[in-house]
């Protein structure tokens, strides 16, 4: 046990002020206040994979690591769409997932927002034109924010989420 505490002490705090640009930090503070006011301090996102290659998911995971720690802004990922304020959709919407994605959207209570993450979700990306994909979430639902990239970096995702909150 002692070793564990020692490791924690040695690791210190790695969480960053996302200071790659200082705008973001300012945005973070502003957004936190929007979340506090309008979402009772917490903004819940349900991640939905509509047929991604799984790299987009890896970068969503990264948002939760100690460096980005998205929860400190009041943004957290939930298990059920019924608990969500927004859906974060990855993947080109495979034909085999399209109905499930619609069902998940249906299960999300109003008011709700839709974020399309990654080139695939934006326009089908590398899989555009395939018989097996719809070619982007816009083919079945209207996204409020699009986040291009293959996959978008955690920083870009973070900015997009914060930006959405800022504008609502």
């Amino acid at each position, binding site marked *: 046990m002692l070793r564990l505490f020692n490791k924690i002490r040695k690791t210190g705090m790695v969480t960053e002020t996302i200071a790659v640009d200082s705008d973001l930090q300012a945005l973070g503070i502003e957004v936190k206040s929007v979340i506090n006011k309008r979402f009772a301090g917490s903004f819940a996102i349900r991640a939905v994979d509509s047929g991604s290659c799984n790299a987009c998911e890896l970068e969503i995971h990264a948002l939760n690591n100690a460096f980005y720690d998205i929860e400190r802004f009041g943004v957290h990922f939930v298990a059920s769409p019924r608990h969500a304020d927004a859906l974060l959709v990855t993947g080109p919407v495979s034909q*085999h997932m399209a109905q499930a994605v619609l069902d998940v959207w249906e299960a999300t209570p109003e008011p709700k927002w839709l974020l399309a993450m990654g080139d695939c979700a934006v326009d089908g990306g590398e899989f555009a034109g395939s018989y097996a994909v719809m070619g982007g979430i816009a083919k079945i639902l209207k996204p409020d924010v699009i986040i291009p990239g293959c996959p978008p970096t955690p920083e870009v995702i973070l900015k997009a989420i914060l930006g959405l909150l800022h504008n609502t």
Partner: protein
Amino acid sequence: MSRFDWLSELIARCEEEHILFHGGSARELAPAHVLHIDIEDWGKFAVMAAEQQTRWCAVWAVQQDEETLLMNACFEKQGDYLVIRAPLDIHSPVLPSQAPVFPAANRPERHSQDMFGVMFGNHPDSRRWIRHQAWDEEIFPLRKDIRMAHSDQVAPADTYYPFFQAQGSGVYEIPVGPVHAGIIEPGHFRFQAVGETILNLEERLGYVHKGIEKIAEGRDAEGLAKLAGRISGDTTVAHTWCACMAMERAANVAVPRRGIYLRALLAERERVANHLGDIGAICNDVGFAFANSQFSRLREIWQRTQSVIFKHRLLMDTIVPGGVKVDLSSQQCETLSQQHAVIKTELNELMAILNDHASLEDRLVSAGHLSHELATKLGVVGYLAKASGVDYDLRRDHAYAPYDRMNIDSPCYQQGDVATRLQVRADEIIHSLILMDTLLQQLPDGDIANTWKPPVAICEGLGMVEAWRGEIISYVQFDATGKISRFYARDPSWLNWPALEQLIDGNIVPDFPVCNKSVNGSYSGHDL
């Protein structure tokens, strides 16, 4: 031991059983050996191959002309690969199944059935597999005469898939997915349970089918490399390498030695990244948040270095036909070696803490047990196999460049539980770090890529790579204009997913997430 010394015995046994060979070749799909047989002997050959204790690897069809499909099946023994081929009349496409003797063939054959309209007689389970309801039962997307237009119409959900049923007092069913609670890929799991104990698990996959094999056709080499890098995003390096290897063998394009070393460096980095992330995630699934936070921190540091040096956090598109895209300066080599040392120290520290925790041991030891016997019977690969006493690693046993010049250390244990799979992955990280140091020390000078020359005649090639999950096999065929006319990639997950159904038996429902994570099959890599 000389290469293929088991082959003559297999051939002799086949001849005793009156299996006719129409020639063989060591060149057709080198380094695999090819044997041509009659389609009637397809099942009988499998019986002989099983008798000789080969491992079943893959089946795929290639349409030769309007009348004929060329069926291919691949087997491995002692690191040598054998491909059998037989022509099949497209108008009466019936052949014997190999699944009765090789369970691993079950789903891949159903994939061929759905995509090519091939019918396997005496198949133990001929239900649809990759096909859901997006196209008609009579339509076979990979046939050349099928156009498969893109449609904006939403396909109905595959609600009536005939799942296995269990009845009896106290038996209940838990349907899970396709949308899962965590941030993971979609698929469906159907549990039958009594109380907390799992009686049976049935997997239903295919939800993320993207038509990769079809949209590969008509691409040039560079286009295929990009697509292969997105078959399974966590395995982007290994899949791209494997597809490029197949294309380079087909087109006879050599990769400069420096390029080969850099490819291996990238592949080892991918292995380390995934193992780091998954060790943390496995611990997280039993509520040990400390490990998750520490290992995801290491993974992030690792990815950031990749972003700076290789220009992509996950190393996508760093491998190209003919070589690699990014070179290393000597200073960057130095940075990387330093990072290897840091990760090694931290990993040892963390593993000591993990091994110290009786509560962790309590959850991981004996959970999700896969016996050696079952692992062999199912033909699993990668860390799943190595944790159950199956000692196979392509880098050592089918040594391809640059591994053929290196000392490959690969872990192998007997216990076959979640704890052992975790240990295999920790060991593999250490081995990879050592390997990467060697790669950097011996990094040859020179070019990192040769110019790609598109082939001008029909040609084909086979690639085999040890990805972080285990063996990938890729088949590529070019047409006479240098465009892809057939691409098939067999992700290791095809062989490992069925083992999850077995190793979960008798475990409790709350242990499913950690057992699943310890196998970590790719959905996207499997669904294609």
